[in-house]
Structure formats: structure tokens, C-alpha cells
């Protein structure tokens, strides 16, 4: 791109020279490395969380469909399966949370610790 054919005069030269002077301080020498580490960690988190969310959504979605198939055809309140779930809702919720936590630990936390160890070993 042209510089609009602007003639550089003394003032322009002074401004340019002043700006091109090395500043009193610069970015730290570790700037790029620190930034790369942050970028990689963020990308890694994003990938792992996305994968976890997708797997969870698939499992929960499948379970929800199964439940609907089992419960909806007979809207009878005496459905034994529905009654069992409703009577033990605290236990069912607890089991669901435990399964979710185990899944999270396996899919996210374990991977994170492995990632940290491998990063420290290579870095």
C-alpha cells in the first residue's frame, strides 16, 4: 500500500525516529512461552469439555428416550417401574450423580492430570 505519496518532512522524521527508539522496557523473554502454554491449556480444556458434554448428552438423551418409551405407553400411575423410581428418587438421583461424577473424573480430571504431567515432562 502506498503512503499516499506524503512527503516526509523534518517533523515526520522526528516522530518516526522517536517512536522507533527502543522503549525503556520490553515484553518479557518468556512472553511467547507463557502465552503458548495458556493457549494450549485453553484449547485442551475446550476440547475435553466439549467431548465430555457430547458424551454426557448422548448418554442422558438415550436414557431419556428409554424412559419415555417405557413410561409413556402406559400412563397408568401403577406402572411398577415408574413407582419404583418415584419411591426411591433420592437413591436414583444419588446414583445418577455418582455415575456422572465417575464419568467426569474419567473423561476430564484424569485426562487433565495426565496432560499436566506430560506438559511438565516435555516443557
Amino acid at each position, binding site marked *: 500500500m502506498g503512503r499516499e505519496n506524503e512527503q516526509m*518532512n523534518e*517533523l515526520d522524521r522526528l516522530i518516526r525516529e522517536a517512536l522507533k527508539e527502543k522503549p525503556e522496557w520490553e515484553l518479557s523473554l518468556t512472553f511467547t512461552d507463557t502465552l503458548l502454554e495458556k493457549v494450549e491449556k485453553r484449547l485442551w480444556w475446550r476440547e475435553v469439555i466439549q467431548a465430555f458434554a457430547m458424551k454426557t448428552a448422548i448418554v442422558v438423551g438415550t436414557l431419556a428416550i428409554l424412559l419415555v418409551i417405557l413410561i409413556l405407553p402406559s400412563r397408568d400411575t401403577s406402572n411398577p417401574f415408574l413407582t419404583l423410581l418415584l419411591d426411591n428418587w433420592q437413591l436414583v438421583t444419588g446414583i445418577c450423580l455418582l455415575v456422572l461424577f465417575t464419568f467426569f473424573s474419567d473423561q476430564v480430571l484424569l485426562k487433565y492430570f495426565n496432560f499436566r504431567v506430560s506438559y511438565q515432562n516435555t516443557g
Partner: protein
Amino acid sequence: MDDATLIEQVLAGNTHANRFLIEKYKNLVWHMVLRMVSQQEDVEDLCQEVFLRVFKDIGKFRGESKLSTWIGAIAYNMCITYLRKKGKNLVVPVEDYTPVTAGMPSEDSADKAFDKNNMKKIVHQIIESLPVQYRTVITLFYLEELSYKEIEEITGMPDGTIKSYLNRGRQAIREGIIKLVPDMQPELQVTK
């Protein structure tokens, strides 16, 4: 490596491409942030935030402008947001601005010869004291040697405003220098 290949490699997760992108554009980002944000302790953090945003949004880059101007625009917008959060007044008409010359070395106050380095220091300090928009436009024009169109893409300011900021900023610097070094007056005629 051209910009298209670089983006392709970054999106593919190539760590070397990430490093290459940072190394290629860190001076542009640093110069912009340094001139716009005077708080030294915040400059490095802000530069990092700019690059984190670049890596987050690089998939959205459509190639309608140069990668450098796209990154520059991110840096500019993040600095503006930072300055707004800090409660800085961003719209200061240069007519209301008086160059800050107090405490700067002047021709008669110095025992030693009024050399080139002193002059650079003076110009630098006057630029530092200019309102942020003027400082930014001057930095992009003189230091990064960008065209008006590229500055327009980065700052979103219309072409006329950029030219106006540049001329008024130049005028303010000129007045600041003349105030301190009256002998410089004949040399500092603005020619186009």
C-alpha cells in the same frame, strides 16, 4: 508462511504455527497496547489477552482483510474496552489539549548540548501525553507504517477522521517542540 497457510495450521492445532503467529505479530500488538495503555504493569497481560482472543476467534477470520489488521483491530478494541473500564475519557478534542512540556529537558535548561537523543525524548513524551486516539493513529502510521485504509480497518474510524487526527496530532507535537526548542520552528514546517 503466508496468512492463509498460517491460519490453516493454527486451526489444525499445530503448536509451531501458534508460536509463529505470536512471534510474527507480537510487536504490532505490543506497540499498539503500549501506546494506548500507559499502565506498564497491565500491558503484558493485555497483550496476552489479545492473543488469547485471536486464537479463540481465528476460525471466524474470513480473510476480507489482512491478518495483521484483523489482529490490530482486536488489540484496538480490547484496549478501548480496558480504558473504558478504567474510566478514561477517550474523546478529547485536540483543540482542548495542551502539550505537556513541564519537566521535559529544554534547550536552555541543559548544560550539555541539546542533542538528537534529547529531541527524541521530547517528541516521545509529547506523543505519550496526547489523547489516546491521536497516539494510536500516530503509532500505526509512523511506527507500523500502515496506510490510511489499514488504520481505518483497525480502528473503525473513517478516513477523514484518521487524517484529521494525524494532522492535529502532528500540529500538537510541533507546538510542543517549538515551546521547548524555539529554534526548531523554521525546520518544523508541515509540508504535504
